[in-house]
């Protein structure tokens, strides 16, 4: 089995090739081609195959992380979309939750009004109304009105349509009827329904998610089609699988039908890659810590399972998105984050970033503001002549100049200023991790931090120390951990049904028949994808809350037939989870099952091991020593620090910090008070001896 993983980022497209039988592994990096990302993808694949003597015809799968949909939303370049909804509710996606984004601003714009996904003129209303609790028909659907609406949309040049009716999550009949009519009137148009995209209550969020699907649908369809054709033309007949936000991959057909699945997928592969690295070292409680030039992305893995967001916390470009997704917390903190003094005279780092152009002053591309990268260089943690494995020389004098200027304005010594930049950015990152752990009742001290991305290994140890975390794992290829994550995925589809059932009066028959129907739907999907039934498994998750609450907690549901006893256990688990997340359980309160979801997992072949490079000895790995600045107690001290070449580090031989480890795609910093060893899987395991 031979697979390729391709992850398209803003600057680079990362590729990994793996022969699962021989264990051969190769990596490659090309520039992203923003006008048509499939060009970069194809160039990368061709070069990767050529460089490693791989016949493209022997590739079984291409796993692909794409930002096509994401960029369409972020850049507001989607389709001219239409929407058909109930009479009286034309403006649900315009009014939103009637809440401003900013409390304290008059000049702000509301994304859903300022950049509408569907203009009002393309939002049509028709008679028809369903009502709770069962989705019973109060007013029948006016089919003629639907037809007229479709004709109008067609005349207006609309290329995609979202059909969004109230309570369709209880009964999709009206949406399906309308969809059939619209498809008949507008052949070739992208037509979808809110109950298909995300059958959950809360109309603004569901309609918006469906409108997002219509907005990006045609573009995603064209992109996938384009790429698929290009792959065939290059002689690759293996299957293309696309990364989804839920941490699984999907078939191209699925992604074309539900394009919203990919909207937040760009970050998901990173969490998977980090989790997989942790798995290889035998750690199951992990914080994945992926830092690039502009942002830090944080994911949490508890006992081998990554956390998922709740339905109400996911958004893109200010639009709510109802889709199952890995809980990834992103903050504006990276190597390019700019250190500055704000209007009030306070010292800040980020969220503004110098980006790649002009970039940090150290890049010598005209950057004049001090960044995190400049601070690392001034402190001797980045080595000017060894950046990117010597692929780029940093301008240390420029870094020192901009940091010195800032130091003068702060009234601090230069080294203190540089160190202050790192302390502030590290504290911001530590706060972001706290918000996903301590604030949810998880004690991070028992976790290992997997530090990757170009800048993760530079900051990992100091951030871990701030949180009392004792262990940091640096993967073999920190810069392409996300692309490797693509090779560790399964097919994963989710089906949801809103229940609104309350403890004490749960209709077990309905619950079980809903589960059976959802599992049957998933089985049929996997059969259509040619997945062997033996490779299919299901996971059931309920969204539960105390009656009256507005936020749900995700509680696993037991397998098999749900009985009263099993349900009692599930409710008990809810009380426990509530207590651990919020510090309290309301044991007297009845519990409401809001949604029930089944995730179907279709097992895929995957990368199962990494072998550490043969390595040499510490002496061979030692490039030289150089002065680096670290904090020792309450003052800064310069240490003559050994600089090692990563590829030559021996497996299993411990060494201590301070140390700096160089490799092409990242630099690892070990402050004093740390010790490290290269694991058999090739990762560096750093232990912090004196966590504060």
């Amino acid at each position, binding site marked *: 089995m031979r697979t390729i993983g391709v992850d398209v980022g803003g600057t680079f497209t990362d590729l990994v090739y793996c022969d699962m039988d021989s264990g051969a592994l190769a990596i490659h990096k090309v520039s992203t081609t923003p006008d048509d990302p499939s060009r970069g993808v194809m160039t990368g694949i061709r070069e990767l195959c050529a460089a490693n003597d791989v016949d493209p015809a022997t590739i079984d799968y291409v796993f692909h992380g794409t930002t096509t949909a994401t960029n369409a939303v972020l850049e507001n370049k989607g389709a001219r979309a239409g929407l058909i909804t109930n009479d*009286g*509710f*034309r*403006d649900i996606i*315009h*009014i939103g939750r*009637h*809440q*401003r984004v*900013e*409390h*304290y*601003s*008059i*000049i*702000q*714009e509301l994304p859903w*009004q300022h950049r509408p996904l569907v203009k*009002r*003129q393309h939002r049509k209303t028709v008679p028809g109304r369903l*009502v*709770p*609790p069962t989705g019973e028909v109060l007013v029948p659907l006016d089919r003629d009105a639907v037809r007229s609406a479709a004709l109008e949309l067609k005349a207006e040049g609309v290329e995609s349509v979202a059909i969004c009716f*109230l*309570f369709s999550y209880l009964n999709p009949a009206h949406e399906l009827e309308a969809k059939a009519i619209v498809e008949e009137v507008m052949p070739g148009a992208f037509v979808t329904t809110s109950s298909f995209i995300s059958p959950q209550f*809360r*109309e603004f*969020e569901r309609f918006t998610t469906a409108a997002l699907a219509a907005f990006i649908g045609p573009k995603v369809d064209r992109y996938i089609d384009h790429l698929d054709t290009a792959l065939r033309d290059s002689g690759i007949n293996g299957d293309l699988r696309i990364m989804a936000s839920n941490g699984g991959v999907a078939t191209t057909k699925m992604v074309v039908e539900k394009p919203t699945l990919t909207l937040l997928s760009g970050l998901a592969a990173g969490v998977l890659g980090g989790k997989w690295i942790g798995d290889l070292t035998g750690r199951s409680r992990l914080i994945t810590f992926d830092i690039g030039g502009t942002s830090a992305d944080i994911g949490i893995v508890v006992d081998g399972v990554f956390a998922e967001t709740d339905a109400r916390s996911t958004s893109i470009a200010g639009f709510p998105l109802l889709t199952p997704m890995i809980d990834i917390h992103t903050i504006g903190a990276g190597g390019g984050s700019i250190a*500055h*003094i*704000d*209007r*009030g*005279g*306070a*010292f800040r780092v980020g969220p503004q970033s110098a980006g790649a152009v002009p970039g940090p002053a150290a890049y010598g591309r005209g950057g004049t*503001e001090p960044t995190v990268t400049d601070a690392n260089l001034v402190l001797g943690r980045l080595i000017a002549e060894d950046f990117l494995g010597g692929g780029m020389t940093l301008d240390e004098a420029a870094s020192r100049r901009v940091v010195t200027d800032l130091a003068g*304005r*702060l*009234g*601090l010594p230069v080294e*203190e200023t540089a*160190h*202050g930049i790192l*302390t*502030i950015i590290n*504290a*911001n990152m530590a*706060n972001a991790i*706290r*918000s996903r752990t301590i*604030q949810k009742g998880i004690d991070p001290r028992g976790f290992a931090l997997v530090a990757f991305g170009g800048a993760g290994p530079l900051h990992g140890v100091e951030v871990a120390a701030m949180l009392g975390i004792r262990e940091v794992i640096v993967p073999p290829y920190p810069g392409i951990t996300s692309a490797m994550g693509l090779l560790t995925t399964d097919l994963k589809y989710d089906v949801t049904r809103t229940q609104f059932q309350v403890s004490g009066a749960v209709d077990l028959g309905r619950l079980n028949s809903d589960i059976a129907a959802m599992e049957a739907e998933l089985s049929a999907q996997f059969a259509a994808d040619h997945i062997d039934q033996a490779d299919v498994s299901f996971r059931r998750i309920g969204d539960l809350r*105390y009656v*009256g609450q*507005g*936020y749900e907690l995700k509680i696993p549901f037991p397998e098999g037939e749900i009985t009263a006893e099993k349900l009692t256990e599930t409710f008990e688990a809810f009380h426990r989870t509530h207590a651990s997340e*919020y510090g*309290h359980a*309301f044991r007297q*309160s009845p519990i409401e099952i809001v949604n029930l979801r089944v995730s179907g997992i279709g097992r895929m072949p995957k990368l199962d091991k990494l072998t550490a490079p043969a390595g040499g000895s510490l002496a061979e790995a030692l490039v030289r020593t150089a002065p680096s600045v670290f904090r020792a107690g309450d003052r800064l001290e310069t240490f003559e620090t050994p600089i090692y070449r990563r590829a030559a580090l021996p497996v299993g031989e411990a060494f201590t910090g301070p140390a700096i480890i160089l490799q092409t795609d990242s630099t690892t910093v070990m402050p004093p008070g740390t010790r490290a060893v290269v694991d058999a899987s090739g990762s560096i395991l750093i232990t912090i001896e004196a966590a504060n």
Partner: protein
Amino acid sequence: MSENTLSKTSAGRAAAPTRVDPVTGAVIQGALENIAVEMGHKLMRMSYSSIIRESEDFGTALTDATGRQLCECRMSTPLQSGPIPGYIRGILKQMAARGETLQPGDVIMHNDPYGGASHGPDVGFAVPVFLDGTLIGFSVTTAHHLDIGALTPGSTGIVDAVDTFAEGLQFKAIKVVEAGRRNEAVWSILRDNIRASALVVGDMEAQVQTAQIGAERFLALVNHHGLKTVMDAFEDLLDYSERLMRDAISALPDGDYAATTHIDGFLDDADPSRRDLPIAVTLKVRGDSITVDLTGTAPQLPDKPINMPLVGTVDISIWLTLRSILLDSVVYGNIPQNEGLTRPITIVAPRGTIANPIFPAPVIARFCPGNALADTVMKALAQAVPRQVSAGIGNLRVVAFSGMREGSQWVHMEILEGSYGGRFGSDGMDAVDTLFANTRNNPIEDIESHLPIRVDRYELRHNAMAAGRTRGGIGTIREFTFLDDGAFSVEGDGHRYRPWGYDGGQDGFQASLKLIHKAGGAEDLVSKVPYHKIRAGDHLISEGPSGGGYGNPLERSPESVLTDVLEDLITADVAERDYGVVIVSGKVDADATTARRSAA
């Protein structure tokens, strides 16, 4: 402090002098904000009633031992977190008067509108934080409760309360937990005197839990950095916020800027002194300070509850409006909300006016006048910073629905949105909460799944868009049908007075409310409706206000007017009448438009 030496440009800007080194200061600020956000997250998610969890009508904050706010949660609505310092001062004063002392393990409940609370339904819970036996601060949550035991169901629309005693239960610094032991008597009183008490008491429990978590985090922070460092960093934060506000005020030309607006009051009241009440604001800008003088504002209504507590409503309304305009967060980012921001501002509110009532004048329905005051402050400030304001806003209205189901009482509150006026660079925001409130509506699919109410319509109004170079925001039309017998009450304003247009822009559109009886007949309702019975099948139609226009409508680009018509916000004849833009079969007739506009 030499803020005058600070450079205005980013590159050469110098750091301000601070007590704590700038790195530690930044780290402590981040940690404080993190605590407040955690508190908000937990309260919002644990709470039961939609007014907290959906509308986000709650606040969380940490204060020092005297009540000065260290940090607030960004999720909370400004009108909730803003008053928290006042709650603490009220608690301290009340306890001193009674000779009581605080001890570790206490939880204090407080809702005295003449002692810092914003109004009775906004109940605060404060947990004192002790370090080695010394009081160092408070962890506080506030939230709007569905019911507080007033004369009729719900805690809004109590527009006929004759004094504060009629507004519901009053708690003046009551220990609901004393040294770690729950005061069960108080909890029983709550359960026995409040409607829908399961929800309300559940929310209160969530508040207590949240405040206790905040207290733990606060103590951990102090233990980590040391009390002196944390408090010094806090003083630096106060100076920081103060410096920003003084800089912004300094940029205004010295002078007096005055404006008056009117609120409906009780339009159906026979007594004219209860109608058409002026709110008068004079901003006296002198150097880096502002005095906000409310002289000329209507006398208090001794027995009608639209008086505004000076501490908790009037002060918050003024502070929040000034900061939203002068330190707009789109330009300035997040600025710590603390006393530093208010130090340069002095408020003069004559005693015995609706802006400084005398106990026991009722205040429970102070929400709409408070927001009208905010709007008046903006109208005055428009003269100094016309590019930073909007034309007049459409005010909000609150409706409480109630009834009996299966032997128990249900209460539901809905905040009916307003809209913003046009702005210098862009049209007004449609259908949104305005100025000092920022709550969320309830999903229709949630309302109908849990209450005997059907929502028949929720859309923008048609042909109700104030013309201007930038147009005013558009209000909503909402319709409800009641599926069971029950009642509703309304606390609103803006049924008579149109939101003000600015600089040649048209005035906006008033709100309205109409009840259509299933049995036949209809009533046009005024903006304040006390407990009003309804029968199953009755139908309520609400039109929300549209904000004022900004600038001369004839200067609006014909393409924008065409878009307004294509978007079906106004009809072509309105485009011609208000904007002088002639539209023929979906296109602008340029010649006719030029002729029409030059003739105007």
